[in-house]
């Protein structure tokens, strides 16, 4: 940018210190376009600036998520319930542990009932919850989720109900019903446990969409982790399979944590820094390395306290993880810089008049 050459300043009052200082300030201002003297703070300029680097006075370009606390809670509940439905079917299929099947079905059903309630509470207009089922839109993870949740709630409830009847009255139709409902609950449960990763990933929030590939397994593992732990705390402390599953989930979560710690991109900053960073980290430790170690220790020593500690830790970790990610979304939305960054590969939007002229030259 061109600037007027500064005229030589004749000083009428050369003895006045402030006048001299002003000349100095004036000179630097004219030369560098900014004033850095004492008393002038905000970074790089004496006043907030709008520029390609700062964006519009640092005002966030994106809107912050407006979900209430019920949403991360729902992520947790829905994830655990979905995983529980899977466990119920697997246990039903391969074990005689009917108690476990019973509990798992009930955990799934309870989650299936709690989830819509949580989601409804989050809505700005809860009375319009049913509008979620007005349309089915494959391109909207929220729509897919709403339908999945509806299906899951019905199937898991039906399975639990059938299971309850079967306990009293062992009839084939009931058995068949439970199995079909259970299978459908499992199928939808799998979606329940993983789709929330897509739900937040397929948004404009950089920290979410940047991690969309790892979010579904992360949330699925987290769901499994908490389902296993809930079942254990409900008394299924002896199931080796549950411990194995818990180990697998915790193992995956440890890997995920490691990955997040090492992928030091600016987009991922909210996962490491600030309030959201601490929640995510704590959640990661509590659902990854800590329960993994405890479970291994339990497998070796057989000390049930260790396993119980692993369960509690996983549940807490899983909850924190969901809250942490949502929180990170807020922080990410507030960072105006990322959506303004220009990766090499992406062409600039809009054409400068030079480019336009070039284009016309070429066309001619």
């Amino acid at each position, binding site marked *: 940018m061109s600037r007027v050459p500064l005229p030589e300043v004749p000083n009428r009052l050369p003895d006045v210190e402030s006048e001299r200082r002003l000349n100095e300030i004036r000179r630097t201002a004219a030369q560098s376009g900014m004033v850095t003297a004492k008393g002038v703070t905000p970074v790089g300029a004496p006043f907030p600036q709008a520029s390609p680097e700062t964006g519009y*006075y640092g005002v966030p370009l994106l809107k912050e998520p407006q979900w209430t606390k019920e949403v991360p809670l729902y992520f947790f509940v829905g994830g655990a319930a979905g995983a529980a439905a899977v466990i119920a079917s697997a246990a039903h299929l391969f074990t005689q542990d009917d108690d476990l099947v019973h509990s798992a079905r009930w955990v799934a059903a309870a989650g299936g009932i709690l989830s819509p309630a949580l989601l409804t509470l989050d809505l700005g207009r809860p009375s319009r919850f049913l*509008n979620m089922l007005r349309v089915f839109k494959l391109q909207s993870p929220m729509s897919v989720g709403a339908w999945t949740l509806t299906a899951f709630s019905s199937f898991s409830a039906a399975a639990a109900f059938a299971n309850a009847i079967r306990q009293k009255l062992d009839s084939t139709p009931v058995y068949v019903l439970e199995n079909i409902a259970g299978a459908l609950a499992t199928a939808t449960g799998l979606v329940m446990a993983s789709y929330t990763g897509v739900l937040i990933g397929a948004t404009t929030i950089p920290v979410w969409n940047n991690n969309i590939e790892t979010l579904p397994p992360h949330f699925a593992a987290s769901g499994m982790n908490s389902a296993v732990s809930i079942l254990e705390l409900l008394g299924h402390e002896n199931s080796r399979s549950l411990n194995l599953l818990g180990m697998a989930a915790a193992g995956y979560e440890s890997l995920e944590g490691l990955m997040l710690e090492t992928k030091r991109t600016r987009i991922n900053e909210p996962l490491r820094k600030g309030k959201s960073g601490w929640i995510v980290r704590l959640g990661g430790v509590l659902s990854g390395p800590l329960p993994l170690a405890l479970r291994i220790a339990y497998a070796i020593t057989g000390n049930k306290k260790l396993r119980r500690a692993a369960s509690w830790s996983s549940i807490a970790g899983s909850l924190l993880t969901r809250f942490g990610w949502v929180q990170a979304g807020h922080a990410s939305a507030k960072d105006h810089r990322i959506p303004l960054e220009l990766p090499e590969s992406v062409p600039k*939007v809009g054409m400068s008049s030079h480019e336009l002229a070039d284009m016309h030259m070429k066309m001619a």
Partner: protein
Amino acid sequence: MSTTAFLTDSTLCIGCKACEVACKEWNQISEDGYEWSGHSYDNTQAVGHSTWRHVKFVENPVEIGLGGNSGEQLPAWGFSSDVCKHCEVAGCLEACPTGAIVRMEFGAVFVQPDVCNGCSYCVVSCPFGVVQKNEEDGRAFKCTFCSDRQKAGLAPACAKACPTESIKFGNLEELRLEAQLRVKELEARGIHDAVVYDPLDTSVKGIHALFLLRGDPRSYNLPPHPEVPTTYMKKGWTSAAIAAGVMLGATLLAFLGERR
């Protein structure tokens, strides 16, 4: 009805905010607080649930002798009236689970207030940070493109109020052409830094509220590569499918082990 659009030409904008106020008046939107921002003369800061047109004020270094219409430097004060982009592929519309957001016959992206249930998923799906939930009301709001007025054959209130025709309202393709012509015209007048903001080559596939600006659109918080979030979906669902498969497999395996 043909596809209608805005061309907001910031080289004609005098920052009078008539558009912002006309929009609020017509649509009966509330004020968004009485806070002094210190961001030049802009105290409403951004479009949101209670501001659907918003005039941005960008200050650049000043040189004596050069007004903002000279080509030799960026205008010391640039104004640009922001609005919902009514994207060709609209993140909000794609994301809305209730079908509250619809495409009108003239191409506008419209939130039906009687359908929206306030799930706020659109909020995180707009690459331009436009639509927002009004926490008190519970529903999401944004520019309606004055669908009510357009249906009655009237121009949108903001365009109508604009004294300098900085907000041009008309047919999309015609305005696209006009925007390019205007850039050439400015070029001829010695202004070489005018650009048209219309992200045609991104997944948004162009917008119905075009902007003509001087300098880098990023100074006005216009993202250089806006993406519709649905573009991430393939990756997401693939990974979810794998996750689900692995989860199912792992669970089955774990219990299969138990039986043995």
